């Protein structure tokens, strides 16, 4: 009797398996993600920040650029919950508006990085040979480019021209997003290539090939969906890195112009008034920190949830 409990027959196992509700890959992943406590905290904080910057300006109606010298450099109070800057502009309104830009830059730059990285990694991994070799040399070279100096150089050389043709906001946005994304695709390309190298030899791809699937169909329908796990993790971390990159640029005074108060830009304006208006720097800095920390924890949770090794030992 005891032996039967310890080693159930195949038929028993099948019965148990059939009785369990079928759970899809994504439901499994989300179940494992929800078990990562800090990742869940990160998700909640990030969602709260998102709701705040998207809906906040509708609820908090103070203009972002109303100059009021009587209320200059005020500490937080009921009329200005986050205080005011040296022109008496309301910091809550400015941060809610600037947060939209900061987060939008992060997401857009991540999408660019992932698209370039996936395209190059997929080409390299699927075709192999000389093309693979050349593309990987190019990737290695891009990995040794000095990111921030190059970013500064490009912004410096192209800013005025783009501002003239596309207007100050759109021009700077496109420039910053394109350059940050264009300098961050290399890790994704390497990950996708590694996935492709192992997946293209797997039986299910072979059978698709045997059934006459075109190379494009093999890649898009069979290999790519199975190689997305690490890309999702890398993409999450990229959002955080892009937000930091934009804030750094703005903090150095070379990102967005003063009338677009991204969080980094507010810090740039605040840094010379640290001794008598610390709140001015603390709030945007904390916002950047909380956003990046939440995104990093979400990335960590996703990595655990998407790791196929974890599936076996659940």
């Amino acid at each position, binding site marked *: 009797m005891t032996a039967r409990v310890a080693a159930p027959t195949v038929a028993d196992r099948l019965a148990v398996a059939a009785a369990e509700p079928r759970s899809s890959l994504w439901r499994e992943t989300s179940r494992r993600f929800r078990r990562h406590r800090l990742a869940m905290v990160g998700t909640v904080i990030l969602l709260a920040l998102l709701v705040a910057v998207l809906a906040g300006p509708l609820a908090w109606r103070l203009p972002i650029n109303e100059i009021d010298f009587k209320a200059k450099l005020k500490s937080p109070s009921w009329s200005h919950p986050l205080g005011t800057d040296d022109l008496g502009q309301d910091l809550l309104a400015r941060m809610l508006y600037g947060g939209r830009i900061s987060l939008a830059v992060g997401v857009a730059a991540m999408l660019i990085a992932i698209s370039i990285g996936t395209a190059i990694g997929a080409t390299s991994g699927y075709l192999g040979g000389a093309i693979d070799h050349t593309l990987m040399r190019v990737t290695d070279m891009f990995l040794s480019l*000095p990111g*921030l*100096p*190059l970013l500064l150089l490009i912004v410096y050389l192209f800013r005025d021209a783009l501002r003239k043709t596309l207007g100050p906001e759109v021009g700077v946005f496109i420039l910053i997003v394109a350059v940050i994304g264009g300098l961050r695709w290399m890790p994704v390309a390497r990950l996708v290539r590694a996935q492709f190298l192992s997946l293209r030899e797997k039986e299910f791809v072979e059978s698709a090939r045997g059934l006459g699937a075109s190379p494009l169909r093999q890649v898009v329908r069979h290999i790519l969906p199975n190689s997305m796990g690490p890309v999702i993790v890398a993409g999450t971390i990229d959002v955080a890195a892009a937000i930091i990159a934009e804030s750094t640029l703005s903090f150095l005074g070379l990102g967005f112009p003063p009338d677009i108060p991204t969080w980094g830009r507010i810090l740039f304006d605040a840094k010379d008034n640290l001794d008598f208006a610390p709140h001015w720097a603390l709030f945007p*800095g904390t916002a950047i920190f909380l956003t990046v920390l939440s995104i*990093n924890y979400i990335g960590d949770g996703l990595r655990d949830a998407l790791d196929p090794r974890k599936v076996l030992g659940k």
Partner: protein
Amino acid sequence: MSKYLLRRTLISIPVLAGISAVLFTILALAPGDPFEELATNPNVPAEVRMNLRAKFGLDDPLPLRYARWVVAMARGDWGFSFVSRVDVDTLILQRLPATLAVLGAASLVAILIAIPIGTYSALRPYSIFDQAATTLAFIGFSLPTFFTGLLFILLFSIHLDWLPFIYRADISATGWQWYWEHVRQAIMPVAVLGLFQAASMTRFMRAAVLDVVRLDYVNTARAKGLSEGTTLVKHVVRNALIPVVTLVALQIPNIFGGAIVTEQIFRVPGIGSLLIASILANDTPVVMAVTFIFSCLVVVSNLAADLLYGWLDPRISYR
């Protein structure tokens, strides 16, 4: 080993050529003309402007201009700073030591923090120490350097009034006092940059030790009677450092980005703050040269990482 070193050095030459090509392409694609001001000046006839363009070779085909630029850079002829009115290479040589000193000290701080903490965390995984260290490391690399810098100034300079927040090159004190003042003003920039590096390094170190410590050869080392300390240092840490070096080498461009920000916040007279100042002053020759220097520094550090790699794992240098 010397053959390995030679091979790695030769490989970095095409990388440098590629980087210089990227830099030159960006410069060539950029809108704007150095003689633009002359075009709007009615006193300068059009043919004078054309002759000037021809004299400086601006109308030549791109590959020729690239070749000339590379040769000039290689010969140390980096142009003339419009703003400072000195040769660019003199300017950079004045500023480079400060940058290298801060970066070197910060890396040392990072190594001294990360290796012991990461190792100890991995030896007692999920203990209170490990959880505290992991959380702090997460916070550390989520804090952007510019915010850490401002927080340090707020706490140590303004609130506690312990440390100066502006870096001064002209300290009048003499003797020990002079050294002490220099150390005091370097504490905050080095700490900001060092803690930033230490955060990610601790995580890498913990993961690497966790992988290594379970392996059979560690048990063998213990079984043949080596002390716990020797096992740890010579067998566990040394092998765990191999993947850590790879990961840290990938972080190098990030570290230089952090250095620029730190120099700018604390006004350290290094090449990072020179870069920002030249950009704000439209001093193109200096901007180009500093960017190129940063590229060279990245390539040299990657080479150093390769060297370290060969020393840690002798098999690599024999392949």
